[in-house]
């Protein structure tokens, strides 16, 4: 391997400018390439399928470059003509496993069926950052697209030079460089070997390389089926939960009875009836291992241990007051425009306060990981959304150089920020080190809902006014939010805390103060956040961090202002927007449900046992990413407060769409998941522990409640592709609250929208 940056070919290749198409010259060049390829001795074979990630004890020092600036970091052309794509971004079920190969296939000019994507392996894939923040396509895919385009230009340039013909007379297709006029081409692999004298490109990614014209796309923009679905539907897809190693022990970690409790004593004899089971204790990290999984589970249940009890938590009922009371780190002014206070003082004010509770990721499969820490090397199979970041953390915890630690992504159960996957991986690593055996740790349902890091609570107080012109004249948002600790390397992990292994303290919540300001033209605005220095339970990013709660507040409040001005909610929004992409999604979402212009509440709001209404909400994600508008129809049973969502319509603009069906699936998922969060979810905890630890005490949406979903994708092939894994979550709660208001005239401002809260809003 060459050193990073030592690529032998830089910049665009210039074919000779003279001469017309000379088939004879190209044929001769072609022969030359093919001969060179035939003589090549392959010294380094890259895995051709993602199954390579399942091979245990692979050498950490595989020698493949992980350089983000090298084409070889991302792309390898294998001896059989297939292409391996090395992606630091992983497929969590959101479809990157098809979308990123589509982007690469399009630029490279090779069939998608000849591309395999290897994901999130610290020994093979470049560190493209965590898979989160809707960055998979927008950043990860775009980086790989750039590498693929660089590769294409180089391959063409090389052939053009040898053939002594202009580069623009060539293109790539089916894994070959060909004359645009047709005829036999030269396989990529043969060009590369001639080009670099090696099997590698040895080429820097050209940040300015010309991408294909979207008008010519044949792969991007097509709903190509995801490759993982057949395996998932037939039970043959390998999740980290299914992964086994020879000699592997099954482990369960016995979590303390209360948050902050420490282990005093363990009665190891209490499990002596279970053959092969034994206790592993590292400080207060208490594990039980056994060759048989049920034996490990039984032993964990039977084990007698004595803990100090702790009562350090504030309890669910106190969360709202706690947000107001602190402890605070600082206040931060996010927007200050005009003189909102003065304008509001002289106006008829509308005021409201909105609350978002703590929520769990609620992954269907409790977290699981497998670790093999032996002989000074560690390999960890994890559903981590950030294998490179986790590698640093776990190497420190194990006291090993990072070079000796390899973290390999395997699919987990759906995770939308950070569930217990990194915790389980740390559990497995420490227990494997302690037992010198490969160890699989499987969390229980109670572990997952009890101990997964939680989405933090949010409180927002808003006030505003509408001027004589019927437009919003002034707006103030005051937010109470938990602040992410600056430069925190990793969320503190349970196992490390329990084992007494030092880690940087702090919390991570994501960029949770975004979109707390209105997306509409408002001349006088103040947005202020009171940053809390901690959170009631260990927090983590959860899908569209903060922006679901913020949009709930901002877009509910926008509706309240529209109602105060007796304006139609859609018209009221449109008058405050000038961006044509914003108005387009709003018009399209309204059209999807044949929205009738009139103010809310509905004229029939005060009558009937079942009240029906429609609501609207809009989001420009982070003010610079996707545009989403959502309309919703609901029925409300006035007597019980029961809500039935009938239809949800979403218009979505994320620029270039890579795979429309996969995108629709993401949007559907965000709508249903966020309806669940809005209608049902609130983590219950007392002074010592989380008490909502199963699906009865932490209910989520079920099939009978599923509404009809209508989606309209705005396709803009000439715009950059934007993230689409979060934005469509954000307007859901406000669209629902606004529909309930339209139906009943009652305003629900606290999530979840329980029957009691809906009934109270009618009073």
């Amino acid at each position, binding site marked *: 391997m060459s050193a990073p940056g030592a690529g032998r070919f830089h910049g665009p290749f210039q074919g000779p400018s003279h001469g017309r198409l000379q088939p004879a010259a190209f044929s001769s060049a072609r022969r030359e390439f093919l001969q060179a390829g035939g003589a090549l001795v392959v010294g380094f074979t890259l895995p051709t399928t993602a199954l390579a990630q399942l091979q245990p004890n692979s050498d950490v020092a595989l020698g493949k470059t992980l350089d983000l600036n090298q084409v070889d970091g991302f792309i390898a052309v294998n001896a059989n003509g297939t292409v391996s794509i090395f992606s630091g971004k992983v497929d969590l079920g959101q479809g990157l496993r098809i979308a990123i190969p589509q982007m690469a296939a399009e630029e490279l000019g090779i069939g998608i069926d000849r591309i395999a994507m290897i994901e999130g392996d610290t020994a093979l894939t470049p560190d493209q950052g965590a898979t989160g923040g809707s960055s998979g396509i927008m950043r990860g895919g775009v980086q790989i697209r750039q590498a693929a385009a660089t590769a294409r230009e180089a391959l063409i340039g090389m052939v053009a030079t040898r053939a002594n013909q202009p580069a623009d007379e060539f293109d790539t297709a089916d894994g070959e460089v060909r004359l645009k006029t047709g005829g036999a081409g030269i396989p990529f692999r043969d060009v590369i070997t001639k080009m670099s004298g090696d099997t590698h490109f040895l080429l820097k990614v050209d940040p300015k390389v010309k991408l294909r014209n979207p008008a010519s796309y044949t792969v991007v923009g097509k709903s190509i089926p995801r490759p993982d679905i057949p395996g998932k539907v037939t*039970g043959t897809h390998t999740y980290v939960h299914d992964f086994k190693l020879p000699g592997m022990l099954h482990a369960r970690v016995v979590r303390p009875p209360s948050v902050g409790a420490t282990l005093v004593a363990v009665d190891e004899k209490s499990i002596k009836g279970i053959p092969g089971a034994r206790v592993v204790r590292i400080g207060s990290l208490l594990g039980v291992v056994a060759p048989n999984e049920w034996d490990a589970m039984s032993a964990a249940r039977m084990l007698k241990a004595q803990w100090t009890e702790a009562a350090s938590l504030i309890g669910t009922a106190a969360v709202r007051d706690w947000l107001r009371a602190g402890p605070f780190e600082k206040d931060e002014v996010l927007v200050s425009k005009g003189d909102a206070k003065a304008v509001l003082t002289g106006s008829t004010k509308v005021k409201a306060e909105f609350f978002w509770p703590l929520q769990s990721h609620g992954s269907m499969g409790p977290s699981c990981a497998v670790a093999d820490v032996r002989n000074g090397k560690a390999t960890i199979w994890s559903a981590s959304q950030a294998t490179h970041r986790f590698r640093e953390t776990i190497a420190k915890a194990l006291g090993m150089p990072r070079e000796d630690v390899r973290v390999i992504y395997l699919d987990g159960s759906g995770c939308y920020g950070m569930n217990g996957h990194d915790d389980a991986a740390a559990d497995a690593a420490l227990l494997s080190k302690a037992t010198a055996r490969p160890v699989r740790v499987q969390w229980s349902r109670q572990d997952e809902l009890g101990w997964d890091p939680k989405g933090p609570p949010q409180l927002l107080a808003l006030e505003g006014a509408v001027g004589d012109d019927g437009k919003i004249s002034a707006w103030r948002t005051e937010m109470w939010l938990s602040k992410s600790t600056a430069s925190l390397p990793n969320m503190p992990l349970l196992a490390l805390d329990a084992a007494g292994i030092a880690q940087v303290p702090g919390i991570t919540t994501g960029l949770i103060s975004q979109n707390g300001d209105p997306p509409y033209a408002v001349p006088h605005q103040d947005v202020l956040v009171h940053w809390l220095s901690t959170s009631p339970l260990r927090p983590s990013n959860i899908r569209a961090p903060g922006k679901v709660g913020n949009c709930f507040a901002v877009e509910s409040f926008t509706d309240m202002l529209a109602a105060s001005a007796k304006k139609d909610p859609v018209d009221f929004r449109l008058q405050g927007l000038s961006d044509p992409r914003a108005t387009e999604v709003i018009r399209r979402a309204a059209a999807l449900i044949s929205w009738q212009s009139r103010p809310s509440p509905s004229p029939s709001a005060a009558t009937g046992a079942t009240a029906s209404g429609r609501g609207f909400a809009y989001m420009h994600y982070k003010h610079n990413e996707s545009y989403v508008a959502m309309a919703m129809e609901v029925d409300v049973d006035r007597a019980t407060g029961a809500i039935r969502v009938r239809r949800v319509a979403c218009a979505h603009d994320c620029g270039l769409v890579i795979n429309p069906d996969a995108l629709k699936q993401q949007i*559907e998922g965000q709508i249903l998941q966020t309806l669940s969060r809005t209608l049902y979810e609130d983590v219950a905890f007392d002074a010592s522990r989380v008490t909502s630890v199963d699906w009865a005490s932490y209910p989520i949406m079920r099939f009978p409640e599923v509404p009809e979903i209508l989606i309209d994708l705005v396709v803009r092939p000439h715009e950059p592709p934007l993230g689409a894994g979060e934005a469509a979550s954000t307007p859901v709660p406000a669209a629902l609250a606004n529909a309930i208001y339209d139906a009943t005239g009652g305003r629900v401002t606290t999530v979840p929208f329980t029957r009691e809260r809906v009934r109270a809003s009618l009073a």
Partner: protein
Amino acid sequence: MPIYTLQVNGQARSVDVRDPQEPLLYVLRNALSLTGAKYGCGLGQCGACTVIIDNEAVRSCMLPVAKATGRKITTVEGLGTPAKPHPLQAAFISASAAQCGYCVAGMVMTGAALLARKPNFTREDAQAALAGNLCRCGTHSRILQAMESAARKVPA
């Protein structure tokens, strides 16, 4: 250790099991390497572990292995393969009815039991049958679409 003989996917399989209370799920996943059924809650609340036993959708996380002997057990692997999927699996594949897919084998097994019992079921039947199967990614619409399409393909 007691040896139990199970009828799994049309084959007799003998397994050594120390504890007759060990749920079928762990025997399938570990001793028999049939990992399609997933552990989700161990409480019968989520349906990820669903298998079909004597034509009924059963939560394998709650069924002691001793009570599974002598009964006809079908797991998702026995229903069909990627090359030769069961019609319901084919419908799930056509509808791309999985995101993370952790719950989907349980959905397929619950759906297959419904299909066998009532080949021309309605959307409401499917919603009722799947009411005890949870999905977190929000794939419900596509799962229902797949179910309806499989029901339509069955002649009345």
